[in-house]
């Protein structure tokens, strides 16, 4: 600032044009910044902050470090090949006694139990049976006597693996991977490997819902764009009508419609089409129907805006040049709606990825999407590390998709439209 004003005071012509421009624009920039400031702060606290927190929790590993600090220090130099030395056993005994006094054993036990089933019992039984500090030099023997698990190298590997401060444990877990006793990454045992399935299911349902939305939304958007304004405005109100009620109400309405004694089944039965009620809800079908209904407007609106921009002269020109209606549609109209299709599909797909309430209410056990598990770990079992890791993987997948879409759109702008 001072430098600028000094040179400015000297001779106006000596100041580079760029800097003079900057100075001239500064007041306006400040004003603009002040206007977006509140929103920026809001986003920082409600959006960027929580996401950063979630990403941190996905890799943070503090519990064992806090509860068993001496053990963690003692294990720092352990090569993991044999049982650790006496020093580590003594440190553990001392840590356990301190933790028992402070009542924090359960915190570490919970974390260690994630990594090795049954660790909670090892730790609590040890704490219960360790009456006094073992004599110097006898810690190894004493602990080994209390619980044979302390004579197992894997027990110590688990503690060392959980000693933080950061860990890949949760992220690997979210992808059905674990580290074995030697620290190598291997597939989790089949009875624990569920998340890949859940991710695959999440993507599959999202994909199906996106496809359904596109198939149902395209003609509606076309109609909206083609009708005269008065009627298209009326139709637009119907498209936006679902937004007038809450998501919960709309989802519950589907339960009323689709349940075995619901409106649809009763009608079909009354018409004599079916004898037994069809299973329309608490399965994949119900999830797809309800989610498609909820997400349809997010497909229709981008499609509509891209179709609105396509002049009717193009279709006339195509017809006059000899293209039958279907050819004209496929070669002239459809390619021009691609940006709308892309935007709508991406929007619906990303929204569907994170869907929670609808599948939770109208889906069966095998239709729960990743958000259900995130919610489960956050609220039920308080395994925030795994919940965050699942969230981080989902976020990564979403960001990659968005980047891919951005690339496609950008490529299209450079060439001024998509080739067909």
């Amino acid at each position, binding site marked *: 600032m001072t430098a600028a004003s000094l040179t400015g005071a000297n001779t106006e012509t000596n100041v580079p044009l760029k800097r003079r421009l900057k100075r001239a624009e500064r007041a306006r920039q400040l004003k603009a910044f002040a206007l977006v400031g509140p929103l920026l702060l809001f986003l920082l606290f409600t959006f960027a902050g929580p996401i950063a927190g979630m990403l941190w929790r996905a890799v943070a590993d503090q519990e064992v470090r806090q509860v068993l600090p001496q053990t963690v220090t003692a294990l720092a130099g352990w090569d993991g090949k044999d049982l650790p030395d006496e020093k580590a056993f003594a440190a553990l005994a001392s840590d356990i006694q301190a933790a028992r006094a402070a009542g924090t054993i359960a915190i570490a036990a919970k974390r260690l139990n994630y990594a090795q089933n049954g660790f909670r019992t090892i730790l609590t039984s040890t704490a219960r049976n360790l009456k006094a500090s073992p004599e110097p030099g006898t810690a190894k023997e004493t602990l080994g006597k209390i619980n044979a698990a302390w004579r197992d190298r894997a027990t110590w590997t688990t503690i060392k693996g959980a000693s933080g401060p950061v860990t890949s444990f949760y992220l690997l877990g979210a992808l059905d991977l674990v580290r074995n006793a030697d620290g190598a990454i291997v597939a989790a045992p089949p009875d624990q490997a569920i998340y890949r399935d859940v991710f695959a299911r999440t993507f599959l349902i999202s994909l199906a819902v996106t496809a359904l939305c596109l198939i149902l939304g395209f003609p509606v958007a076309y109609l909206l764009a083609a009708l005269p304004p008065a009627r298209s405005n009326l139709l637009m109100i119907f498209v936006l009508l679902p937004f007038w009620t809450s998501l919960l109400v709309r989802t519950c309405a589907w339960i009323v419609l689709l349940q075995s004694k619901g409106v649809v089944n009763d009608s079909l039965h009354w018409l004599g089409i079916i004898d037994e009620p069809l299973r329309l809800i608490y399965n994949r079908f119900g999830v797809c129907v309800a989610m498609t209904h909820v997400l349809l407007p997010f497909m229709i609106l981008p499609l509509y805006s891209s179709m609105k921009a396509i*002049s009717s*002269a*193009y279709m*006339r*020109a*195509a*017809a*006059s*040049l*000899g*293209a*039958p*209606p279907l*050819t*004209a549609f496929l*070669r*002239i109209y459809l*390619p*021009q709606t691609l940006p709308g299709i892309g935007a709508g599909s991406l929007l619906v797909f990303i929204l569907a990825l994170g869907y929670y309430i609808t599948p939770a209410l109208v889906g069966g056990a095998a239709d729960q999407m990743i958000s259900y598990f995130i919610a489960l770990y956050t609220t039920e079992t308080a395994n925030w590390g795994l919940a965050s890791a699942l969230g981080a993987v989902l976020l990564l997948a979403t960001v990659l998709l968005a980047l891919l879409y951005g690339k496609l759109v950008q490529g299209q702008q450079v*060439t*001024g*439209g*998509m*080739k*067909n």
Partner: protein
Amino acid sequence: MVTPALVRFSGIQKTYDGEHLVVKNLDLDIRKGEFITLLGPSGSGKTTTLMMLAGFEVPTEGEIYLSDRPIKNMPPHKRDIGMVFQNYALFPHLTIEENVAFPLSVRRVDKSEAQARVKAALRMIKMETMAQRRPGQLSGGQQQRVALARALVFNPQLVLMDEPLGALDKRLREQMQLEIKQLHETMGITIVYVTHDQSEALTMSDRIAVFNDGIVQQIDRPDALYERPVNSFVANFVGENNVISGSVETIDKGYCRVALKAGGTVTARAINVSGAGAATSLSVRPERIAIIPDGASGDGANLLPAKVQSTIYLGDHALAVLDVADNAEFMVKLQPGAHDSLKHGESVFISFRPEDCLALDPV
């Protein structure tokens, strides 16, 4: 020279709302190889006529024949009619080459032949180097040339142009007029051209059909239209025109004596007057009038007193605006420089020959 009609409109009527006829009883023959312009103000039915020919509108009454086949119910893509739109309507997602190749590819023309024809078409409009660009990267004039190439590349029987030059600036428009005219002459195609610009129509057309109020007022060659308009609308719409109101006194051998409302009489050719005593509008072209300061009339010429309002210098010529017989916007075309001697408010006389003054229907 009797060339068979390529297109025949027979008793065509068109209404959009069921109350007003936009086109009233149109009968029109378009000959093969001819450049015909549908000229008229907006709302006169000329574009509707074109759209019915293209197949985008269906006539309410009557039939259209193309090469003697009725086409009223034939969809546009089967008509084999090329069309150039006002806003070019080039497909924005395709390159120039792909745009021009489009009519060939939907007709499943052999690839190598299509390529050669596209190349030839692009050479014709001198745009071979731009083949890989997109329409958005071209100027308006270039886009219109591409639209032209696209409409011609499949050798249609007929090419329709709906105010194709309306969006271009004057200089470019005049250049494109000549280019289109040349294309028409070298390729021998039949063109139906719609415009509201009478000078464009005069420049390009073999024949002009002047539309007003859903009715063809006159179909004629440009010179005939200008020299011998059949009614006041055509006289006023095509070219500059001066109007004087009066009533017919006598008619004799194609000429009539007309008493002016403002006083005085002139002799005029009786073109569209019903008889003695009828009201009439006299039409005199600005370039057929001489200003005579002292009132010394030539033999047999009409002579009227006038008052100079103003003069306008236009480079290649000048205009004098006079007050003649209650018409305060009476224009006289002068040689450049001749306007210098005229002063505002000066009293002069104008003279014009009876054969240059047409007695038409009253406005």
